[in-house]
């Protein structure tokens, strides 16, 4: 079981070298690309104006490392070219580069020419806890605004797929809500209760889903006990499933900015790993995102 970002990187190093394609890369992409190429995780394939890219990498470690430049002078076509490389099997991983989020999402989700697999895509924020050393997943923190119950099921299945790749056996899931009791006026409590029931009936394999759980019960076994709630999940959660994106996005940010926690992310629901460029993920941890993507390659995609 992988318990840290270093563990993820080491595990990725033991796999084969992947080809990572990135449209319209900027200088900010050079550090993670250089580190990942130096660690022999990837061979970067940079799509854009050939001369401009050559000039950019001139003073970076990438210059002396294996890489490929795919000449595409029209910046509007760089993303489509990158995706085409993936679809044709000439690259394994797509990284965002300087195209904006919506443009990236539209292209990736395109039914005909994109990379989407399954009914929806979701975003998982992976956090590294120092004591005890442990990885936790929070989802969906970026893509789905107000997922329905059925969509939450897919989001949860995506997270379970990632815990499987990270070697977390029988993951414990907190289906979060404002309170730990079912309140018919609070939809998140109902969704959480249903997912919990589905888990009882083994619809999520060995995963244990507890819900609804408020965050204090999820985080602390003692706090849960004071509320009369006893469960294998409380105080030992692997996956935090949030009700909607207001909560998910702000929760992930709160952990980073107030908790000074390290985070990396993964888009799920695609044929190949796609790495997004979020501002609250440090440059150092974008290298971790490449390592996560590398571990996911060759697993047949993760669409639900």
């Amino acid at each position, binding site marked *: 079981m992988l318990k840290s970002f270093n563990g993820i990187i080491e595990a990725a190093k033991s796999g084969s070298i992947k080809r990572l394609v990135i449209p319209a890369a900027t200088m900010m992409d050079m550090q993670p690309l250089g580190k990942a190429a130096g660690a022999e995780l990837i061979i970067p394939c940079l799509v854009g104006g050939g001369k401009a890219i050559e000039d950019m990498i001139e003073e970076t470690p990438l210059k002396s490392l294996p890489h490929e430049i795919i000449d595409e002078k029209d910046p509007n076509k760089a993303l489509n070219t990158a995706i085409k490389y993936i679809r044709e099997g000439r690259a394994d991983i797509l990284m965002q580069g300087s195209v904006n989020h*919506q443009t990236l*999402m539209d292209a990736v989700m395109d039914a005909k020419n994109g990379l989407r697999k399954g009914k929806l895509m979701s975003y998982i924020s992976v956090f590294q806890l120092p004591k005890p050393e442990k990885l936790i997943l929070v989802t969906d923190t970026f893509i789905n605004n107000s997922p329905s119950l059925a969509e939450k099921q897919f989001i949860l299945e995506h997270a379970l797929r990632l815990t499987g790749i990270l070697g977390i056996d029988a993951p414990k899931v907190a289906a979060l809500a*404002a309170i730990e009791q079912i309140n018919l*006026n609070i939809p998140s409590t109902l969704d959480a209760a249903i997912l919990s029931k589905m888990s009882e009936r083994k619809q999520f394999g060995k995963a244990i889903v507890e819900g609804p759980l408020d*965050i204090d019960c999820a985080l602390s076994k003692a706090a849960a006990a004071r509320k009369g709630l006893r469960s294998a999940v409380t105080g030992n959660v692997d996956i935090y499933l949030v009700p909607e994106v207001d909560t998910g996005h702000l929760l992930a940010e709160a*952990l980073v900015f*107030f*908790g000074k926690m390290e985070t990396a992310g993964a888009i799920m629901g695609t044929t190949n790993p796609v790495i997004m460029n979020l*501002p609250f993920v*440090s440059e150092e941890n974008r290298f971790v995102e490449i390592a996560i993507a590398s571990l996911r390659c060759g697993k047949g995609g993760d669409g639900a």
Partner: protein
Amino acid sequence: MIRSLDDFSRIAQEKGPKKLAVLAPEDEDFMLAVKTSWQKGYIEPVLIGNTEKMQRVAEKVEFDIGGFEKIIGDERQAIADLGLNMLFSGKIAIVSKGQIPTSYIYRSIIREENKAGSGMTVSVVTFWEVPGLDHLIAFTDTGVSIKPDMKTKAEIIKNALFVYRLMGYPKPRIAVLSGQREIGGTLSSYRDFELLRQAAATGDFGECEIVDGTSFTELFLGGRSRVPDYRGVNREDIPHILLVPCLDTGNIICKLDFFLDVTRCSLVATSRGPVCIPSRSDTSDNIVEQLAMCVVVVDRMTGEVS
């Protein structure tokens, strides 16, 4: 200006004791908090609940409650109603929830506010003390409105401003939080931000500022897309009041004190005085801090500003 929970504790000792109606103190942690708060001079308790149960937990925490006023009661809603009626009729200064469902307390508050014709929306303000920050930050509404509309959010802001101004800040800064990203269209929480910001700019909330940022990334990074080391960002720029989009968000984020190096303290500000509503998962020490905060708030509400 009150900048820390220690400030609340210090001032509560100076300004106490305040008469506190304690609703069903039938749990050891809670009774211990009442004992400690009384010993520190914050409160003079009026105990409302089942006599046997109160006596039993008092003995367990070695608290002699023989000298305090006691009112016998068993039915939870009746106890909540009585306590809030005592607050609104001026017989006591503060109410605190013991072993009573929070929804019963809110129901009683709403009834009393309606009777008083105050028009005040009930909302919860949860303070965080964050190491390195020079002020407390107040999340709201963390307890009552499940999915407040823009009009309700305006009332929630007014309540939080009322409390924050009592703490000595004439022009608090407010962030209207949202999960708005570059994808997925415009969230209702973001539309509310835009409308509330306009309302603040035209003076609807008095002296205050709604800052131009709805995410922690924007608040911490000041709108920049990325900095090499965001840990070095000046956290004193963080607004005083953080309006959360909905109850799920508010409750989930404000209770991250179980995980992060922050200390949490909550209260409900009614038009007649504060109501302390500790979570059942709160420890005794945490409840004492919340009572200290209520003592200071009621003291300042009655004009005895120190």
